[in-house]
C-alpha cells in the first residue's frame, strides 16, 4: 500500500500496579491506509479501547506505554510530540467518538459552546465564525442549526451521537477513531449512524479506526479487520477474508458464537 496514514508498531501498554503489572496491549502492530476503514474486534477487556486511547495519548497513570512502541501518523511519531504539538495534533489530525454519547458531551455547556472552545483553541475563530462553522457541521448530520444553543440533555441519544460526530468533522481530521460508537443505541439508529459515517467518509476522505465487539457489524462496515485476544493481535486481514476464511482459532470461535438467523449466511 502507499504510505499508511496510521502505523502502529510494537505497541505495548502496561498498567503499573503497586506490586504487579497488567499487560493490556502486547506488541501490537498494524497499519491503516488513507481513506480506509480498519476494524479492531474482540471481547471486552482485550485491549482494543486501550489502543484507541493511546493514539491520542489520552492515558493517565498508572497506564504506561513501553519504550519500544511507535505510533506514526503520516510519518510523525505521536509518542514523541511535546505538549504544544500534542495539543495541536489532537482533534485536528485525530478525532474520537466514544461509546456513550450520553456522557461525551458536557452536560452544563450549550452545544455551540462545545464547538466554540475547540474551534477557538485550534483555529482562533471568533464566536461569529464559530457559529457559522457549527451550523455547517450540524447540517451535515441533519441537526437543525437553530438548536445550537440547546443543552445536551435536550437531545435524544441518537441525536447526541450525531452531534459528537459533527464536532469530530469540524476540523477535517485525517483519522476518526470510533470506540463502540453504536453499542448503546438501538439497531435502527445504529444503521443510520453508520450510513452517515460512510457518506461523510466518502465526502471528506478520512480513515476510520472502528472498534467493537460486534464482528458481524464490522464485516459489513470495515475494509480490513484485526482480531484481538488478551492484548494480542491474533489475526489481521480483509473483511472478506475474515468472514470467509478465518484462520485463527479464536476468530473461528467468535463466528461460532454468533447466533445466525439464516443458517450461517449473514449478509
Amino acid at each position: 500500500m502507499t504510505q499508511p496514514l496510521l502505523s502502529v508498531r510494537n505497541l505495548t501498554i502496561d498498567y503499573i500496579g503497586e506490586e504487579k503489572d497488567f499487560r493490556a496491549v502486547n506488541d501490537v502492530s498494524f497499519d491503516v491506509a488513507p481513506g480506509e476503514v480498519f476494524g479492531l474486534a474482540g471481547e471486552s477487556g482485550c485491549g482494543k479501547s486501550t489502543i484507541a486511547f493511546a493514539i491520542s495519548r489520552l492515558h493517565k497513570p498508572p497506564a504506561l506505554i513501553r519504550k519500544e512502541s511507535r505510533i506514526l501518523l503520516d510519518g510523525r511519531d505521536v509518542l514523541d510530540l511535546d505538549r504544544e504539538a500534542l495539543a495541536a495534533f489532537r482533534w485536528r489530525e485525530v478525532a474520537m467518538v466514544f461509546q456513550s454519547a450520553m456522557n461525551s458531551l458536557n452536560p452544563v455547556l450549550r452545544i455551540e459552546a462545545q464547538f466554540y472552545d475547540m474551534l477557538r483553541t485550534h483555529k482562533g475563530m471568533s464566536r461569529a465564525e464559530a457559529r457559522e462553522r457549527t451550523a455547517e457541521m450540524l447540517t451535515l448530520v441533519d441537526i437543525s442549526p437553530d438548536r445550537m444553543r440547546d443543552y445536551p440533555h435536550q437531545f435524544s441519544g441518537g441525536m447526541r451521537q450525531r452531534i459528537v460526530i459533527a464536532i469530530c468533522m469540524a476540523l477535517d481530521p485525517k483519522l476518526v477513531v470510533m470506540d463502540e460508537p453504536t453499542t448503546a443505541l438501538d439497531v435502527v439508529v445504529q444503521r443510520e449512524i453508520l450510513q452517515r459515517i460512510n457518506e461523510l467518509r466518502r465526502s471528506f476522505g478520512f480513515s476510520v479506526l472502528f472498534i467493537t465487539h460486534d464482528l458481524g457489524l464490522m464485516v459489513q462496515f470495515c475494509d480490513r479487520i484485526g482480531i484481538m485476544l488478551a492484548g494480542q493481535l491474533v489475526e489481521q486481514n480483509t473483511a472478506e477474508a475474515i468472514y470467509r476464511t478465518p484462520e485463527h482459532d479464536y476468530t473461528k470461535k467468535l463466528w461460532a458464537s454468533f447466533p445466525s438467523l439464516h443458517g450461517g449466511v449473514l449478509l
Partner: protein
Amino acid sequence: MAFLLRRLVFYMAAFIAAATINFFLPRLMPGDPVQIMFSSAGAELPPESLQALKLTFGFVDGPLWQQYLTYLGSIFTGDLGRSIKYFPLPVTSVLGHALVWTVGLMGTATIVSFALGTFLGIAAAWRRGSTFDVVVSVGAIFATSVPAVVTSLIVLFIFGFTLGWFPNGYAADPSLDPAFTLQYIGSIAYHGILPMVTLCTVLIGGFTVTMRNNMINLLGEDYIVMARAKGLSDRHVMLWYAARNALLPTVSSLAIAIGTILGGSLVTEVVYNYPGLGNILYQAILARDYPVIQGQLLIMTATMLIANFIVDISYVMLDPRLKGA
C-alpha cells in the same frame, strides 16, 4: 420552577414544625408550663404584661388545638412576645439587632471559605497524588476535626492574648459610639478579623474535601476524556468541564452544611463576645429568658430555610437540566 415551588412548600412545613416544637416543649416538661416559661419574670413584671405574654404563647383557656392555633397566629403576625431579661423590649427587636451581626459574620465567612475551599479542592484534585494534594487534604482533615469551640479559643489565645495583635472581643471598640463613620466601620472590621479567621478555618476544610472528592469522582467521565481529546488546555478542561460539573454536588452539600455553619458561628460568637444571635441565645439561656429562647429557634430555623432556598436557586441556575423543569 416546579422544583423551587416544591422546596418552598417544604420549607413552610419545616418552619411550622419548628414552631410546633416550640409549642410542645414547655408542655412536655414536668411541671406547670406557665411556671417554667415565665419563672424568671419575678415580681417586676406587671400582671397585664404577664397576661399578654401568656396569650402570645398560647396559654389560653381552651383545648390544646386552640392554644396551638393561638400560638401560630402570634408567630405569623410577627408577635414573638417580649423578652423577660430586656423587658419591655419585644423579642423581635432583641433578635433583629443580633441578626444583622450574625448574618454579617456568618455570611461573609461562608462566602469566603466556600470560595477558597472550592478553589483549593479543585487545585488538589487536579494535582492528585502530588505533595500539594497531600498537604491540602491532610490540612483539611485537621481543620475539620477540631471543634469550633477549640479553634476559637486557640486563635483567641494566640492572636488576641499572647501576641496582642487583635482585640479580645466585641463587635467594635466599646468606647466608640455607633455611627457610619470611617472610624467606627474600621473598628468593626478590626474586631471582626479574629472571629472571621476562626470561622473560616472551621469551615474551609469541609468545602475543600467535598470539592476535591467531587472532582475526582468525575475525572473519569467521558466528557472529560473527550475534552482532552479535543486538544483543549488542561486549565480549560479543569475549569469548564470538571470543576463546573463538580460544583453542582458541592453546592448542594453547602445547603446541608448550613446547620453546622450556624452552630459553629454560634460558638465563635460566644467566645469572642460578638453580639450576634448565638451570643444572645447563650445569654438568654443563662437568664432563662424563654420567650427569647423560643424566638431564637424560630429565627434560626427561618435563617436556615432562607439560606437553603438561596442555595436551591443557585443550584437551579447552575444546572441546565433543572432550568426547564
